[in-house]
């Protein structure tokens, strides 16, 4: 696939620039009956540190689809496993690091088997931006895929604790043609604790 194009202005655009695109570029301008002129420059392509040691094809096989904050120090991470690697993938581990100050990747202790598509990560710092990625392993424990990274900033949740959550459980039309609603109040924090407990017990 061609990764460059000439612009109407006479410029050259290179898309998905790679380090191998570095080198000397020469521009030749010529006109019939006139002289030819050239100009040269050296182009040095610098990595932005976003390259991950895997091909872009395998990135899509394991994908972080969503990150939600569930309390001031915890997030819920959801992912998707592409069908093409479903049969080879045995377990997933989560890695995360702070953006600033930049830390090295921290790895979650838990291994998630391929039937699980979300996890809760706790003990994160509020008001901090993290990068998350997933590592997929085959049955022998060999690294199979690595997902693209996704950023998330934990914000301060104001209504903590005991933020009530309402559920409308029923609604019906009365004989005098009015709507009657019935509802239930529950508490997010209690739900989170239940979820955490479930996670702890299942591993």
């Amino acid at each position, binding site marked *: 696939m061609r990764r460059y194009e000439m612009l109407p202005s006479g410029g050259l655009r290179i898309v998905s620039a790679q380090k191998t695109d570095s080198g000397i570029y020469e521009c030749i301008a010529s006109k019939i009956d006139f002289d030819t002129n050239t100009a040269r420059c050296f182009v040095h392509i610098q990595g932005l540190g976003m390259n991950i040691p895997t091909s872009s094809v395998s990135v899509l096989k394991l994908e972080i689809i969503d990150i939600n904050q569930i309390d001031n120090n915890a997030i819920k991470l959801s992912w998707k496993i592409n069908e093409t690697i479903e049969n080879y993938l045995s377990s997933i581990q989560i890695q995360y690091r702070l953006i600033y100050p930049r830390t090295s990747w921290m790895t979650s202790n838990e291994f998630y088997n391929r039937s699980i598509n979300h996890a809760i990560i706790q003990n994160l710092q509020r008001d901090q931006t993290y990068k998350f990625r997933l590592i997929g392993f085959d049955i022998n424990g060999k690294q199979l895929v690595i997902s693209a990274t996704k950023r998330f900033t934990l914000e301060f949740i104001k209504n903590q604790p005991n933020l009530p959550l309402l559920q*409308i459980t029923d609604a019906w039309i009365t004989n005098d043609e009015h709507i009657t*609603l019935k509802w239930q109040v529950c508490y997010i924090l209690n739900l989170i604790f239940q979820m955490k407990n479930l996670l702890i017990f299942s591993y």
Partner: protein
Amino acid sequence: MNNTNSETVDGFVIYYRPTLSKMNFTTITIPNLRYPLIDTYTISSIEPDQEYELRMATYSNRGLSPMSNSIKISVPTRKSHSKIFFFLE
């Protein structure tokens, strides 16, 4: 836990509108003055022959809670209409 319920809910807000309308939601505020918390309410100002969309939230001195699930309910045509229809037949 029941104690925290009454401490953190001062009342409820119901939001409703005909599903097909682009109107703003009509709101009804229902203060909760008793314990255990009220858990039903009847809305009287509705039009027949429409589908309504309803959601709720609780409020307290901490502010509004997140929105509840949204539900849809159809209000049938008024019975008096069918009477006229019967008469004409």
